[in-house]
């Protein structure tokens, strides 16, 4: 039962990810991106990482996917809806994907021996303790990076109103 859910979720995630880059309509691509991200959240749920599932859906499906749709709809041109979206550098993209897949495969190989065999229990309490005690410094560093990205986005999109045009 669990492996059936796992493989069906994986299939949904992979097929919809493929449709994101092959469909001609940009809005359809954005929708399938949302589906793909939701299926990844489903994978977390199947593996017993319930907090990660909630976070994935909240941030990626409810936030990122909606923002991408917002941008596609706001800045969309008529050509977005029927022209081929795949660009000419697909060879390079395929190469990058292959190399990162191989790297991840090696990393997974290192950790397969230490896989836990116990059934997962609710872990939110533990997760919170780890984030704010043992891994507090990396956690804050990531927050700093996100804050810098936020300020950068505001800086670059800011229009100086005082300057006379």
């Amino acid at each position, binding site marked *: 039962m669990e492996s059936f859910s796992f493989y069906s979720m994986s299939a949904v995630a992979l097929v919809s990810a493929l449709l994101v880059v092959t469909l001609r*309509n940009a*809005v*359809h691509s954005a*929708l399938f991106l*949302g589906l793909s991200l*939701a299926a990844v959240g489903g994978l977390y749920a199947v593996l017993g990482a*319930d*907090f990660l*599932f*909630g*976070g*994935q*859906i*909240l941030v990626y*499906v*409810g*936030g990122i*996917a*909606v*923002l991408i*749709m*917002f941008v596609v*709809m*706001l800045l969309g041109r008529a050509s977005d809806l029927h022209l081929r979206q795949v660009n000419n550098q697909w060879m390079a993209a395929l190469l990058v994907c292959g190399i990162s897949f191989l790297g991840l495969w090696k990393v997974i190989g290192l950790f397969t021996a230490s896989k836990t065999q116990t059934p997962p229990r*609710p872990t*939110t*309490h533990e997760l919170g303790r780890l984030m704010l005690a043992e891994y507090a410094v990396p956690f804050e560093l990531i927050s700093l990076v996100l804050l810098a990205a936020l300020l950068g986005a505001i800086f670059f999109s800011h229009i100086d109103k005082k300057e006379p045009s």
Partner: protein
Amino acid sequence: MTASGSEPSQTPLASAAPAPKPAAKPAAKPAAKPLPEPVFNQRAGRLIRDTRYWPTELWKDPWASQSYRRGAAWLAGIILGIFATGWAVGELAPWGDRIYEAIVSFVSARGWPAVVGEAIWIVIKALIVLHVILINGLWAIWWERKISAHIQSRVGPTYAGGFHGWAQTILDGIKLLLKEDVTPTAADKWVHALAPAIVVVPVIIAFAPVSFGVELSAANLDVGVLYIFALAGISVIGIVMAGWASGNKYSLLGGLRASAQLVSYELPRAFSVVPVLMFAGSLNLQIIAQAQSGYWWGVVPRWFLFYPVVGQVAFAIFLIASIAETNRTPFDIPEAESELVSGFHTEYSGMKWSIFFLAEYGYVLLASFLLAAFFLGGGAAPLPWLSAIPSWIWMLSKALFMMFVFLWVRWTFPRFRADQLMDFNWKFLLPWSFANIALAGAYLLWI
């Protein structure tokens, strides 16, 4: 538009004497028959300005009217009847346990695997939760129509079903089922058809961890609060899809406004609950409700609403953001009728259109139950000597009261402008919800 200045203004009355002196009517329309002299409302001997006729003599002594007495008796009878039924039935959780045991013994007597019993039980729970949402749709629409009518001095639906037009929504539902399902030529057919489903399905799934009383929820999830907020966020995609796929520029504008508003208001909504989670120390709705049991000095319930300052600020921000999340009137710029011809659902008709409304009322009910669980003590009785009445009755009463507040707000306030809406969220609600988290931390550290 050009004839707007034809009505004579009432400015001479601004400085009028305390008595309802018959105002000298400016002879504006000589041809028309003279209207009866308006009776103006007064309070404490002074006129309430800018009001027109209200049957004051009728409301001097409302108990003299037989229909008023009968209505009050009905209301008291209904409330007492609900409480008596609750007292007779008792807690619902033991009944659930009994049904579950019956299913398990039936399955094992037949020699089927135990998974079958679990599956049947899950299906029963899912069906019950689904019907909570469906029946809520019927009930909430009727209630909204009656309450909006009485707020506006009308009577609302009266005939269908006999008792205050209770069957009106059922008849309207049949009408909507029989209406033609129109898909515009300019629409993207698949996205247009899927959008209502994407809007309504997350509401139904999000009800899984909602607690309807002590030990009474379809799934006792450890991350219940996060799960509800996460799934409630998916509906935005459906609204954006509906707006884009309709092939109509008003709908597109509605979809854009909806995505901007809902993504913005999700933040203060989630952050306003953080103090509650800090006090309760859990994301589980059952544990949050349990953390509020007991009474201060034996009378004041230990609800999070009564925690000084922190509780009230969190409650207010959560209520405001929840109203914004359901696209209801002070925050209904995504579907503003006067600007966007009802926005993202302009091009929908029949059942597809009504599914959007089912989702909206589902979200209202969800927010009401969350408000009851987070701030109003869940299934706890408001006074210690009322605890003979079971928790599900209290939970339902609190949720329905909060639902009344939702309707009350909708029919009282005018609509925000789009930029005011964003300013209010980013410059007022969000900073105050952060300050509230800091204040809750100070409480936990030093008190």
